[in-house]
């Protein structure tokens, strides 16, 4: 078609049946492409944007809990400088929480040295979506750090700050350290299911106090993959359907997150046991935080 021919065609085009079909087909095509882009944008939102919001909320919760701790009596008076961490080792039976938890507000900090020295998250009370957006959330019906029973926390794997993205990398005996207003509690990941048979022979570093579970605990392992409805994982004795903390119960920690990555078809569960506790003192950090 040459320019002279274009000039000769009248400016007002008549609508034909072919035009209508073309318009509809083009409209459907554009709609489908647009939907595809919206889905991609959702992925960007879920993986990156919610992380930004989550980090911001987490930073606010950390500032808040730092202020509470700074104004608490223990933090203000216990300023003895210690050279030997053993001086601060405490018997968890003698420690009772002196703090109150408030839904959505931070009350503890979670350190996992295996994920790097900078891995710390403020743990908030509650596991509703709003709570978990801030950071790992404590199942309100479970026990508090250091207590007999089960201190259970849920956390997002991908999105909202992604606190528990790397739980699959935890090995048995890795330290999971919890700081509260008055105490440091050092938990260690229990033996994995496939390590149980040869556990007696292992004498790896940091495994003091970590053993194969027996009795009512004999099906509790360091990592378990389970169905989303498996609430028994966070009960005082995991898998035992009772909310009562039995006499002589262990002091466990349980971390739950979604599994596999980018899905929530299943849950990944990490169980650990309390091996040591320290009372807090100015400028004192548990040596366990230096492990990697």
């Amino acid at each position: 078609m040459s320019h002279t021919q274009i000039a000769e065609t009248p400016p007002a085009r008549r609508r034909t049946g072919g035009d209508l079909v073309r318009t509809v087909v083009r409209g459907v095509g554009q709609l489908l492409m647009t939907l595809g882009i919206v889905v991609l944008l959702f992925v960007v939102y879920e993986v990156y944007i919610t992380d930004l919001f989550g980090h911001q909320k987490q930073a606010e919760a950390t500032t808040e809990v730092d202020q509470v701790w700074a104004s608490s009596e223990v933090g203000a008076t216990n300023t003895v400088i210690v050279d030997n961490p053993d001086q601060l080792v405490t018997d968890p039976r003698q420690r009772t929480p002196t703090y109150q938890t408030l839904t959505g507000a931070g009350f503890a900090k979670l350190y996992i040295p295996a994920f790097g020295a900078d891995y710390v998250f403020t743990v908030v009370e509650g596991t509703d979506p709003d709570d978990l957006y801030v950071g790992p959330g404590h199942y309100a019906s479970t026990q508090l750090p250091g207590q007999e029973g089960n201190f259970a926390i849920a956390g997002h794997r991908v999105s909202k700050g992604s606190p528990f993205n790397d739980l699959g990398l935890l090995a048995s005996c890795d330290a999971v350290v919890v700081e509260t207003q008055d105490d440091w509690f050092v938990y260690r990941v229990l033996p994995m299911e496939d390590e149980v048979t040869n556990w007696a022979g292992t004498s790896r570093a940091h495994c003091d106090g970590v053993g194969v579970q027996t009795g009512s605990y004999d099906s509790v392992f360091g990592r378990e993959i389970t169905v989303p409805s498996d609430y028994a994982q966070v009960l005082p004795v995991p898998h035992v359907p009772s909310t009562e903390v039995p006499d002589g119960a262990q002091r466990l920690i349980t971390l739950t997150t979604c599994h596999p990555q980018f899905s929530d078809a299943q849950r990944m569960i990490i169980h650990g046991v309390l091996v040591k506790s320290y009372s807090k003192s100015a400028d004192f950090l548990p040596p366990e935080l230096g492990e990697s």
Partner: protein
Amino acid sequence: MYVWIWRHLPGPTAVRIVESLVLLLLVVALLFFVVFPWLEPYLPFDRAGV
């Protein structure tokens, strides 16, 4: 759809390009701050609790 929008944007081509970018940003912001946060709880991606 996009052709229709382009035809109805006022001004010369350069201005229209700026206008369409602004429209695009508005739509993305609407998705990120309103639509997706509302939609998310209904989708099976990151429920972490048991």
